[in-house]
């Protein structure tokens, strides 16, 4: 939620005492939210790479040339990352790593069509990711691999808000620190099937064939899945099943277009799905295209990590 620009506050006399009306209630006035002027929308980019060119290599749907973007957050204020936007000449895989917290934001590389939107349809993170800059700059590394098989020019920006607490009056700065100190307990996470190789390559499904993918919440945190996205070279049908309980999330197969969206229009469940630690969800797919099908499903989630 963004900060309210205006708030109603009790009126006070010059001594700071609340003024009460005849009915015994404080008399209220409209005032600028003192925090708001110190918070601004912000587009984050790699300061050295407005665009990144991935050399042609591999082939279509083969993890190819690797590039790296370093998103630097200077020491002016915290950064609360909310969405991903980008444009490219072809598809690519991406991985995020936060060196400050030694945290990977996905278990395997993620297909760009699943989590990279544009200004008109930003891809919102399931949970804003907070960078507490402390007294030094922070960094987010992003590793990109071409999937197009041709030279691939990529522009990638992260959008969020800067909290300029260092230039705020001390009491406001303190408020901001208190408010955002809790932000690091949960964080955004992308869940990709365990069958995906470490470089992001997926095993294709043969025409009209079947395959099974495993989404697993590892032992370090519970995972709350909010939305589903997929990139594929053809249509498929699927079922989702909890391994531990053998409970199906649908009585019969569902077409991919009825259950998976993309970065611009993700599929939302009616309610979020909690995948507890070390639990698995199995996705059984059947190709409907009749041709070799490269399927890149992604579950956008947030991780609930207990900090003692």
């Amino acid at each position, binding site marked *: 939620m963004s900060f309210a*620009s205006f708030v109603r*506050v009790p*009126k006070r006399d010059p001594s700071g005492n609340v003024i009460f009306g005849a009915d015994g209630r404080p008399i209220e006035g409209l005032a600028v939210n003192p925090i708001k002027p110190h918070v601004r929308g912000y*587009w984050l980019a790699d300061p050295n790479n407005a665009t990144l060119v991935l050399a042609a290599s591999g082939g279509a749907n083969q993890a190819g040339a690797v590039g790296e973007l370093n998103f630097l957050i200077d020491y002016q204020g915290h950064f609360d990352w909310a969405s991903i936007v980008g444009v490219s000449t072809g598809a690519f895989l991406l991985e995020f790593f936060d060196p400050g917290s030694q945290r990977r934001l996905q278990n395997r590389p993620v297909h760009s069509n699943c989590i990279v939107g544009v200004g008109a349809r930003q891809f919102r993170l399931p949970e804003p990711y907070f960078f507490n800059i402390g007294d030094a700059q922070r960094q987010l590394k992003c590793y990109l691999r071409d999937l197009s098989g041709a030279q691939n020019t990529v522009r990638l920006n992260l959008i969020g808000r800067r909290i300029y607490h260092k230039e705020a009056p001390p009491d406001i700065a303190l408020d901001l620190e208190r408010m955002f100190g809790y932000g690091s307990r949960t964080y955004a996470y992308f869940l990709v099937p365990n069958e995906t190789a470490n470089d992001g390559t997926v095993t294709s499904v043969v025409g009209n064939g079947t395959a099974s993918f495993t989404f697993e919440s590892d032992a370090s945190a519970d995972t709350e899945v909010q939305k589903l996205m997929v990139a594929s070279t053809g249509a498929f049908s699927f079922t989702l099943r909890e391994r531990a309980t053998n409970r199906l999330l649908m009585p019969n197969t569902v077409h991919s277009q009825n259950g998976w969206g993309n970065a611009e229009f993700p599929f939302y469940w009616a309610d979020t799905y909690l995948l507890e630690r070390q639990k698995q969800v199995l996705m059984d797919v059947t190709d409907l295209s009749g041709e070799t099908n490269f399927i890149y499903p992604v579950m956008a989630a947030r991780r609930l990590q207990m900090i003692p």
Partner: protein
Amino acid sequence: MADRTRLPYADPANWARTKATPGALRDFTTHDYIPGQPIPTWVKDPETGLVTVNELKKYVKPFWLTTDPDPITLAAGELSDWIPMVIDGKGHFEIFDAFFVSQRAEGFTVELFDPGNQGRERPILMNREVHVATIASGGGVTLPLTGALPVASSPGRPFRWPQSFFMNVVSGTGAIMARFRNLNTTQTNQIRFVLSGRRWYHLQAPWKIANRMEEIFREGARTFPYFFTTDQFVSLTALGTSSPVLRFGDDAFVEWSKGMVVSTGNFTVRIIETATQKRLMELPVRQDLAFGNGEFPFLMWEEALFEPNYQLTFELTDLSNATNVIWITLGCRKIKVDPKELETIRPGTSPGRP
């Protein structure tokens, strides 16, 4: 006093009917009105706990406001006269959305003002003419992943103004004045422009409900939508640069919530707060990563609040290698704060404080 505080829907005549209402025991809102949202049809009477029809709802209806005449035919490059969009005097009108149809792909520009509010410090709704596709839906849209979404489906993607606009038909003239400019300089352009919202038929309502409507309208009088574009017309030469500025007025605080652009080619933008030199992005960002359009606007996750008379500088660089005409529009709302109510926030009153 009792009449003022008693909610209009708490009418004993309706109580018997509510007993047969399916789901009447489930949770329903007790509010007859929630700003910016549809009027609740069913409400729970806080006095009885019964669910009943919201009496307010009976006198609030959807409404489209059109130009007169409609359609309008503009000659090549023509700037029209001021054209009235008139509503009758039966009730107030609250504008939420805007739609358009343009025969030519170039579209047209729009200027709007409410003559009924001249002298009341909110006569116009934009600082200069803006491209219609940045404040209204109707041009279709193409997205990198999803592809083309045609004009025929544009009504399903209404451009919701950053703030609804209350038109008072009693103290005002009951009209919006609109002026259009055909951006096709070689052909005529047949256009349509429609404002969509809801009518508050307070003059036909029982006095208690009419009073409630007037009360709601007074609450909305301090805020209204406003569209800001660059102070000057922007046309970049091939691979050229320009740094137009945008100055917010000195009459109100401005909250920027949506960003839209129409251009003839790609370009990069870097937005800088002129006074503080605070940059909203370290590096220039391509326009489609910083702005949306009238059908899918760029939604600011953190709405930006600017003090009166603030100025933004837009550093623009063409990427198209051709002359690039750029229409940037910031969807904002103006908030007029009564100086008498502007209280100094003292320690202990900050909303962020535990």
